[in-house]
């Protein structure tokens, strides 16, 4: 390795809703395009495979300073990650992420949700966040919070029918995500209320 080329610094993980990215500050060499290569090491490699590292081909000779590692962080174990700079034949030392990364620490945001009153039918449309996500939807008639009902939605692929509403009643809905692989939930979305009104949706 060439001592001229310093290792990338400020290596960190951006992880939201089970999408994980490795990022670092660029290595600046005047008038040159520096490239980067990223490798990962799972707990299995550390404990059972001589601490071997695996290259991420989509992040080999990369000019960007961001690498999507989601595909490779596919188990709930501790991962090591490292990146080095490359310029022609020169290679920097590896810069390694401080501490392990475990996807259990991903930040989970409340789901984007749209509540629809289709005549007397209370419907909810949920953002598709990928196969790892389920949704817990709570709904109630305004003023009857203690009779709150729940529905677990395993796939957000279509509009979900929650309830049949009484005419003129106000109905409220909120939702949170749940990721089984890490056994964690997001906080709840803002509550949205609608009123059944014949065939017109009425936002409150």
């Amino acid at each position, binding site marked *: 390795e060439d001592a001229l080329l310093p290792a990338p610094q400020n290596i960190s993980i951006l992880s939201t809703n089970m999408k994980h990215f490795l990022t670092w500050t660029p290595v600046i060499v005047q008038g040159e395009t520096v490239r980067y290569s990223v490798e*990962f090491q*799972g*707990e*299995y*490699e550390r*404990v*059972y*495979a001589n601490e071997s590292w*695996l*290259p*991420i*081909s989509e992040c080999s000779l990369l000019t960007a300073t961001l690498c999507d590692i989601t*595909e*490779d962080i*596919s*188990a*709930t*174990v501790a*991962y090591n990650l490292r990146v080095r700079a490359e310029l022609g034949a020169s290679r920097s030392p590896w810069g390694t992420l401080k501490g392990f990364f475990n996807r259990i620490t991903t930040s989970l945001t409340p789901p984007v949700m749209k509540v629809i009153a289709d005549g007397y039918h209370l419907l909810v449309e949920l953002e598709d966040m990928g*196969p*790892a*996500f*389920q949704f817990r939807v709570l709904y109630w008639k305004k003023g009857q919070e203690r009779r709150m009902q729940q529905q677990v939605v*395993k*796939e957000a692929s279509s509009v979900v029918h929650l309830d049949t509403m009484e005419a003129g009643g106000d109905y409220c809905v909120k939702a949170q995500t749940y*990721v*089984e*692989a890490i*056994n964690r939930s997001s906080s709840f979305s803002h509550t949205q209320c609608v009123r059944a009104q014949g065939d017109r949706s009425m936002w409150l």
Partner: protein
Amino acid sequence: TAGNKIFHFGACRVSMSMTEIRTGFTAIKANIQARDPIRTLSILSYPHSLHKVKSSDRCCITHHLFDFYVDKVFKHCKTEDSFVNRKVSSIANSFLSMKRKLGQCHEQNQCMCGQESAEKFQQILANYEGLNVTSAAMKSLGELDILLDWME
């Protein structure tokens, strides 16, 4: 669906994310099975299928098989193909995570080993050791869907 399953092995309840393992395996199955020239032999199913194992022995045989794959198989499945290696890593790390969960049951004596599962596992080891290590490892990896199907 998200694909996490709650496996009930007697008193032992273990949540496992099978979808990610199946996705990883499906992506490399053809490649791995193409590396296995010995089609007439099976590691997991010879002479008897896993389906013959009594339900009371399921936890123990599952625990042994996870140990078998983590300790013996995956490390000998390195290939010249970076994509395959990454998927093997994905499966291996998932197995490690699940092996740990099963180990907790084992420690709480909820994963008892009967004679039948001990014999079945010994047979699997004999099948494995009857081949050279790389062939045995590739064949075992290629048979992963047999294990996954049996578990589900």
